[in-house]
Every structure is written in structure tokens, then in C-alpha cells.
């Protein structure tokens, strides 16, 4: 048992904290208001290697670990949830499945540009009628000579409007249910592939969430990822890891909301006393800080297990469930502690509360996490 962070992990936090404070936080309120994807921040994050942390240097990654990746997402989310999910979706949902499931040729072709941040990645599983119910996929892929032909549409795709590489699930044999799903690598500009409407959301407004449309989209045969019929496995293993990213995001949102609220409580006076001097309110802070620390331990444990090659699916589900619910509870409470000001856009807790909600929904709702956890505790 070792709860000590490594020196590298401490330096990751130090550098991302500084980056987030100087480069991300000053933009957070504006890009939320303008629903603007922060292209300039993505370029800066690429320059400092934030987009290839837990991958080996031979593919252009930083050679770091998943705990460091979790810390990075957490520290970004502490000031801007939208910016953090760009890194999370790119790393966990696009780079990782290509790294884990890709052929040597696919890795050599895609990873260097993805990990350097020259290319941004996205992941397409969800459809209008198939999110949690992956077997309800209606996007089809058929082999035609040397090409796969994709038809259908995906929705709610994070990074959709700005990604260059997409890992996309499509049904290759409907009769096989989950075993009929196959994963593909689709590139921006592939014939028949286009980006549909951009969602207007409650929170993470600076994140690009779009439809992907495939109309006789033709891609070479070698874009198959992980083998025919392996798509469900590709998707589920990807989401196991993705949950660490979203759990880190939720953790960061909660920590950020608590930090600004504590500052507010130390400055705001009512009835001749600072808010922080009212014991009932101070106890709220104690409860929030305790929940956040518990979430942090779960998140880092899941990440550490992934680093050690241990089965971590149950723990990443627990981390995401607990961190997401903590983020929602903490941000709601933080708005309450700010009173009327907390409900205005003059204070960041309003944005943080809106941003927190999505962590209970995407990359597996809280209910899905419970299915995963229960199945692993009780057995199927």
C-alpha cells in the first residue's frame, strides 16, 4: 500500500496547475458563454505533451502513467471542465483503443500524430437509439471489395467538430447482436463522412459535441480496428479506461468548486462574521472535502491498477460513479453557499454546477456504472 505520489506525478500536478491557472482559467467563463472550442489551448496543450501522457515514447507519447494522466485531467477540470474533456476523450477514447487494439501499421500511422497533438481524436459509439444499449447500433458497415462502406449516424460525439481521427463502431452482422459490432478508424475527409449538427448543451459548452454522418462512407479495408465482430470488446475496454478520465474530470470540477467556495466564505461577511466562521457552513466544507478526498482515492486507485496491468473495470466504474455524484452534490452545495451570487455568471460555481451534471451521464451513466459494479460484485 503506497499513497505517496511519485516525484514525476508531483511535477505533473505542478506544471498542469500552473498551465491551468495561466492559460485555461482566464478563458473558462468566456468560452463557456460563447460556446467556443478553445483551439488555442489545444495547441498549447499539444506543445507541452498533455495529449499523449500515458503512452510509450516509441510512439511519440510522454512515457507517463495513468495516474499522471488522471492528475492532468483533474487539474484542468478544476478550472475548466470543457478543456479537460478534450484531453480525456482524445486520450482515453481514441489514442488508447488504437494503441491497445491497433495493428503495428495502424499504431505507426496514427499514434505519432495523435500523441503529439497534431491530430485530435474522437470516439463514435452512441446513436440516437443506442447509447447504453450498444447492440441497438444502426450504423452499418459492409465490405465491398477492398473497402468498407459505412452508413448511419452517431450523436453526442465529444471533440466531433475538431477531431482528425475517429474510432467508430458499426454493425457488420446484425444477427450477432453485440458480437456483430466492429470498430473502424475513420479519418476527417474520408469520402461520405461529414459532421452533422453541434449540440447546444446545458454544460461543458466549450466542448464540441456533434453528430457524425456516414453516407456511403468508403474507407480502406485496413481501417478495421481489432477484427470483425470485436467492436463491442473494443468499445467496452475503451470505456473502462475512459471512466478514469471522466472520474478525474468530476473530481477536478468538485475540487475547483470547493476551492473557490472556501475563498468566498473567507471573504464574505454576514451578520458581522465571515461565512467560514459559521460552524454549520464550515461543517458543509468538511463534508465536501471528505467526499472529494474519497473520490480522489478511488480515481487514483483505478488509474494505478491500470498502470499495474490489474483488472480495473470495477474500480473505474466505482470511481466514476462516486466522483460524478460527488461533483454534482458538491457543486450544487457550492452554489447554495454562494447564495444569489452563486446563481449568476459572475461566479464560476454556476458553470461548474452545469458542467458537473454531464459526468453522471456520459461514458456510461451512473446507472450503467452500477450495472458494471453489481455484476462484478454479485456475478452475472
Amino acid at each position, binding site marked *: 500500500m503506497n499513497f505517496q505520489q511519485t*516525484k514525476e506525478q508531483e*511535477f*505533473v500536478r505542478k*506544471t498542469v496547475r500552473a498551465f491551468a491557472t495561466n492559460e485555461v482559467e482566464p478563458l473558462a467563463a468566456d468560452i463557456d458563454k460563447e460556446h467556443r472550442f478553445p483551439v488555442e489551448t489545444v495547441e498549447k496543450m499539444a506543445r507541452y*505533451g*498533455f495529449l*499523449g501522457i500515458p503512452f510509450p*515514447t516509441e510512439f511519440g507519447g*510522454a512515457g507517463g502513467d495513468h495516474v499522471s494522466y488522471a492528475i492532468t485531467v483533474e487539474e484542468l477540470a478544476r478550472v475548466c471542465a470543457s478543456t479537460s474533456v478534450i484531453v480525456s476523450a482524445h486520450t482515453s477514447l481514441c489514442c488508447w483503443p488504437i494503441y491497445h487494439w491497433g495493428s503495428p501499421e495502424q499504431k505507426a500511422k496514427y499514434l505519432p500524430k495523435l500523441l503529439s497533438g497534431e491530430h485530435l481524436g474522437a470516439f463514435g459509439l452512441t446513436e440516437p437509439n443506442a447509447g447504453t444499449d450498444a447492440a441497438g447500433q444502426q450504423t452499418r458497415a459492409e465490405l465491398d471489395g477492398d473497402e468498407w462502406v459505412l452508413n448511419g449516424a452517431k450523436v453526442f460525439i465529444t471533440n466531433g467538430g475538431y477531431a482528425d481521427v475517429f474510432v467508430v463502431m458499426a454493425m457488420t452482422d446484425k444477427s450477432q447482436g453485440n458480437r456483430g459490432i466492429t470498430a473502424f478508424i475513420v479519418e476527417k475527409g474520408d469520402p461520405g463522412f461529414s459532421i452533422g449538427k453541434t449540440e447546444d448543451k446545458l454544460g461543458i459548452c466549450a466542448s464540441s459535441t456533434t453528430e457524425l454522418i456516414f453516407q456511403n462512407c468508403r474507407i480502406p479495408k485496413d481501417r478495421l480496428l481489432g477484427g470483425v465482430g470485436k467492436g463491442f470488446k473494443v468499445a467496452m475496454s475503451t470505456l473502462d479506461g475512459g471512466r478514469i478520465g471522466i472520474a478525474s474530470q468530476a473530481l477536478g470540477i468538485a475540487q475547483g468548486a470547493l476551492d473557490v467556495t472556501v475563498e468566498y466564505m473567507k471573504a464574505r461577511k454576514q451578520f458581522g462574521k465571515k461565512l467560514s466562521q459559521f460552524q454549520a457552513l464550515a461543517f458543509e466544507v468538511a463534508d465536501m472535502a471528505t467526499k472529494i478526498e474519497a473520490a480522489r482515492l478511488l480515481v487514483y486507485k483505478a488509474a494505478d491498477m491500470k498502470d499495474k496491468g490489474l483488472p480495473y473495470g470495477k474500480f473505474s466504474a466505482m470511481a466514476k460513479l462516486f466522483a460524478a455524484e460527488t461533483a454534482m452534490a458538491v457543486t450544487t452545495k457550492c452554489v447554495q453557499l454562494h447564495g444569489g451570487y452563486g446563481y449568476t455568471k459572475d461566479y464560476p460555481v454556476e458553470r461548474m454546477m452545469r458542467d458537473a451534471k454531464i459526468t453522471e451521464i456520459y461514458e456510461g451513466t451512473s446507472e450503467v456504472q452500477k450495472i458494471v459494479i453489481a455484476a462484478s460484485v454479485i456475478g452475472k
Partner: protein
Amino acid sequence: MAFKIIVCAKQVPDTNEIKINPETGTLIRDGVPSILNNDDANALEEALKIKDKHPDTHITVVSMGPPQAQEMLFECIAMGADEAVLLSDRAVGGSDTWATSNAITAAIKKIGDFDLIFAGRQAIDGDTAQVGPQIAEKLELPQVTYVEEFEIADNMKDITVKRQLEDGYELIKIQTPCMLTAIKELNEPRYMSMKGIFNKEKDIKVINAADAEIDLTIVGLKASPTNVYRSFTPKPKGKGITVEGDTEKDVAKTLLIDLKKKHII
């Protein structure tokens, strides 16, 4: 041949976080984070900018301090320096600026060839701005302090710098080898990169006085000609006063009366 730069850096307590014990008048060092001295970060950044343009540039960061200063050197390498040397020895502890520059000069001689030395103007803990210039003198190098702009020609020999003065600036041409001291206006230091942080080949050498062949009679507390006689916290100044009046003339009149009362005019 690779262009070789030595950057002098110091680990300092973050003075933004420092408080002074009002009773004893001493610094409260507990819990104060140690950081790479601000001006030294500018010095390193300028060296890294040369390396960005000329990748075969080799940057060695040199420092003197306790073993914990390796943390700061780790940061310098994570920012992009190639190697770091820490001179750490009880024998050099307590050195004033003269003794410190003796020790660092010896360490630099030990490191060997260089084309350029960059240092920060001064450290935020001592604010002397003496060590850099003293090293230059002892190495018999030309030097320019307070550098706010830097340019090196493609021949990697001719340097033009803009030197900040209180009421203007000087443009100075200088040739390598030389020593320059950086101020914050020179650049915006970069962050550590992820690749830098996880670079497994971080080369931080810790050397002692014997390794650097330092003459022990010119380093350390005893050899230091400067002794701190007393340190104290200046009393906070009282609040200023605002002179008010209906017209500018009234204000001037009231002010003149006040100043006369206090025998200032």
C-alpha cells in the same frame, strides 16, 4: 560543434508565501515551497529558445545548494535542459556572494567548455545581483547585466542585447564567450513538458567541493567577508493622507499649511 550554454540557477523559498515572525523578526520557513528563482527561469528560457532554433545546443544548469535543490534541477531538465550539476557540500554552506561565486566558478571550470553563461539578474531571497557578475569577473569573461532582449547571429558568435536601465536602455554588441544576466522582461518561461518530466535519462550530477577542486580557504561561512550584523522588519508606514478641498486652490493651500506645520517647507 554543439553550442554550449551554462545556466546558473538557484533554488529559493517562494517569497510570495513567506511570512515574518513579528516577535523574532525571522523568516517563517516552515511549509514555504521552494522554487526555481524567477530570473533564473528567464535565463534558462532564453537558453532553451536558442536550443529550439539550434537543436544541437547543449544546456547545462549549474547550482549550489543543499541536496533538495535537485528538485529544482529536475524542473530545469523537465523544461528542456540537457543536464544539471549541483554543487552540494557543507564546506560551502553559509557562503556570501564572494565565496559563492568562488565555488560556482570552480564548478563551471570543472564542467569545462562553454560558449555562453546565462544567469538570472538576482535571487529573490537575497536580492544582491552580485553572484552572476562576480562569476564573470573570476572567469575573466565580458558581461552584460539586466538583459531584456537577446539576439544571436547565425555564426553563433555575435550577440546583440538590450540592457535595461532605470530611465532607458543600451544596445550592446558582445561576442561569445560571455556572461549575460536575465531579467523578467526578457521572456516568458515555459512550463515543464510531459516528455521532460518522464524523461528517464535525467542527468543530475551532485558533486562536492573535492570533486570541483575547490580551494576551501575561499568558500563557506568563515571565508565570507560579509557578515549579517542584524536583520529587521521595517516598520509599516502609516496610511497616507488625502488632502481635500472644494477647489484646487483650496487643496494646495491646505497642503502648504500642513507642510509648513511639519517644517518640511
